[in-house]
């Protein structure tokens, strides 16, 4: 199978996907009720889409193609409203967060579709351990080459995005010490990591054909990269975000990515070089482990700063673009949260500290997601 053609898309358009946790309202553990939610959502008119995911206690919602932060917020609100109606009829809770804090992965059940069973057979326990919840943001690109250039430009900001969105400190009842433990599960997959350093679609096609010839991959969906091109939509897809605890935060993260993309596209602040990836995994680890307090190594200068400082600096640089894109509200939300709690992971730890019971943490997560 060869690489599909890169579709047309509106430059800097946004699409947001959120994987949500379905929990019971009794002990607040995950509950396999995706099919029930899907049934009740049938016939509801919503922008975008709602679909099942690999384990039955997970559901994914996606917006349509949006042009602005405001549109993302309004579409997410509408979808959330419809989902909450269905959830109330079933007495289940819906929640953000990158992991469920105390679910036992061995108890998860695979959703009934041939593809999910295939994946499950191949990856074994990894696929159940993949009961993790992420936000994906698509950014529209005018051409395939532009997409690759944007992808490698954005790669520098992967640690920033991880630190801001981190919302998975707890795994199977334990505090992992990480801000985003979810990404550790992603890194276990053989084809995770970063895309190869090529900036022309033609060269990417050569790489893809070589991989396809080895029989290791059959399509783009087999790559679990942090950012990957999505030729079918004509977008690049940022995949490192934990699902935030609120839709407002999800929309704000999309707005931040949109501003970064516009800045990178119009000002070309960095000369792309493969060596930029030398500190990549170090930076990414720091972001996962320490969140905004992590160390960021500037790929160009080798300078060390805290991620918090570098994120705040990026907000300042993006101000003009945020105004042009109508994304100021989004960036303001991120800045306020960064200066106050830090991120959702810190919020979750605070609640745990106060309440001492992870089930109560999930209950409050559900309340927050309902707005």
């Amino acid at each position, binding site marked *: 199978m060869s690489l599909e053609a890169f579709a047309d898309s509106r430059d800097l358009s946004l699409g947001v996907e959120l994987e949500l946790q379905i929990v019971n309202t*009794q*002990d607040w553990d995950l509950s396999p009720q995706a099919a*029930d939610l899907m049934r009740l959502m049938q016939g509801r008119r919503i922008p975008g889409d709602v679909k099942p995911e690999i384990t039955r206690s997970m559901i994914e919602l996606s917006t349509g193609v949006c042009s602005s932060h405001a549109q993302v917020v309004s579409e997410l609100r509408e979808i959330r409203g419809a989902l909450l109606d269905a959830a109330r*009829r079933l*007495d289940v809770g819906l929640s953000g967060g990158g992991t469920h804090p105390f679910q036992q992965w061995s108890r998860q*059940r695979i959703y009934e579709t041939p593809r999910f069973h295939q994946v499950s057979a191949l990856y074994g326990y990894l696929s159940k351990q993949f009961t993790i919840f992420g936000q994906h943001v698509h950014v529209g690109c005018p051409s395939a080459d532009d997409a690759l250039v944007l992808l490698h430009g954005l790669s520098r900001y992967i640690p920033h995005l991880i630190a801001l969105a981190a919302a998975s400190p707890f795994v199977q009842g334990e505090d992992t010490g990480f801000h985003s433990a979810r990404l550790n599960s992603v890194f276990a997959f053989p084809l995770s990591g970063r895309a190869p350093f090529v900036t022309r679609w033609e060269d990417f096609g050569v790489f893809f054909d070589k991989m396809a010839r080895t029989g290791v991959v059959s399509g783009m969906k087999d790559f679990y990269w942090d950012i990957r091109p999505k030729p079918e939509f004509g977008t690049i897809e940022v995949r490192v975000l934990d699902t935030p605890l609120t839709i407002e935060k999800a929309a704000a993260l999309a707005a931040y990515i949109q501003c970064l993309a516009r800045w990178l596209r119009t000002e070309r602040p960095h000369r792309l070089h493969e060596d930029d990836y030398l500190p990549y995994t170090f930076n990414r680890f720091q972001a996962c482990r320490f969140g905004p307090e992590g160390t960021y190594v500037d790929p160009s200068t080798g300078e060390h700063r805290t991620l918090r400082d570098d994120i705040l600096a990026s907000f300042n640089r993006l101000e003009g673009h945020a105004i042009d894109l109508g994304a100021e509200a989004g960036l303001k939300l991120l800045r306020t949260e960064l200066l106050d709690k830090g991120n959702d992971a810190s919020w979750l730890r605070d609640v745990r500290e106060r309440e001492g*019971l992870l089930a109560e943490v999930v209950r409050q997560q559900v309340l927050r997601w309902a707005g």
Partner: protein
Amino acid sequence: MDAWTWPQPPGPPGEVVWLAAVLVAGALMGEAIARTTRWPRVVGYTLAGAGAAAFGLHLSVPMPDTARWVIDLALALLLFEIGTRVHLRWLRHNPGLLATSLLESVGTAVAVYAVLLLLDLPPAVATAAAVLAVPASAAVAGRVALELGADGQVTQRMTHLTALNTLYGVLALIVFKGVQLADGAPGWWQQLLALGASSLGALVLAAALALAVARVARRLDLRHESAVLLLLGLVLLAVGAARWLGFSTLLVPLLAGLLLRNTTQRPWVWPRHFGTAGGVLVLLLFVYLGALWSPGLLAAGGAAALALVLARALAKGVVVMGLARWSGASTRQALALSITLTPLSAAALVMLGELWLALPALAAQVAPVLLTALVVLELLGPIAVQQAFKLAGELPADGREAR
């Protein structure tokens, strides 16, 4: 020198030895069933009891004191637990489910009453049997779902409908006893007053239990064995007090669970059935239920019992299936749900005991019908419930959970 004689035991073995023997037999049969079939262990517990009854050790109603205590206490734990799993706000968000709950209970009572009248039973007997047939089995439902690790809408709805129809049944019995006692007898209003007072007393006791548990939970981690024992002690104390004061031993724990769940936001997390200690009581309960049958009873109950079982299953099925769409369930789930409601409850047995205290003559007439129905359903019930969970796709992929 006198000939040596085998030392004589100082007396009969006593209750403790019998209880231990019941425990061993139940546990053995439970494991045997789990090893050789894929059925829930409760089938084995019940079979152990049924086997004992076959050798003439059957349990008759009114029950001996030990059996009554064990059943009261085990049921109290199960009812308290099921009460804490009922989220009343769900009924507000899903009126279809509230309607299902009310109509399946009323429908069951009406259907059973009508069928027994057709079979020429006296109206008072038919009414009493109809009231006792309303509750589904909290014991079977809770135990089988737990053992098999069932999870999903059917499990969730079964829990709610079972807790609620048990509540309706218990309340209906109080009213029924009131009406029967009031019927023309001198001093009837005093009887009524006493009934009212005892219902109010049950409510107060339930509130006290809920409050005590909430207090304990705030200070101790309920997932720890020692805290659970304290909790267990509180529930048993409340039920002991209820029996001593003549309140319903079903109403107090059930109401306490309901109050606890619905007046506080914090999740109530503790080991199901209160860990091992509670597990022992639940096992004994199933063995005792198994021992209820005797050939004489089956002959006396006969056709009326079978008619009761069928009418009851049909009524519950028709209502649950009929309101499936409104309540947001699929047809398959509704079918599974109506099957999970068919096992007849140990609560019915305790209710029969309560009826016996107030109206022994009437209770004696109801007993054969109700007990035969119970006997028929107690072996079939858990297996049917398991199949229902399977039908609804609510069991883990490998069919059973190692717990």
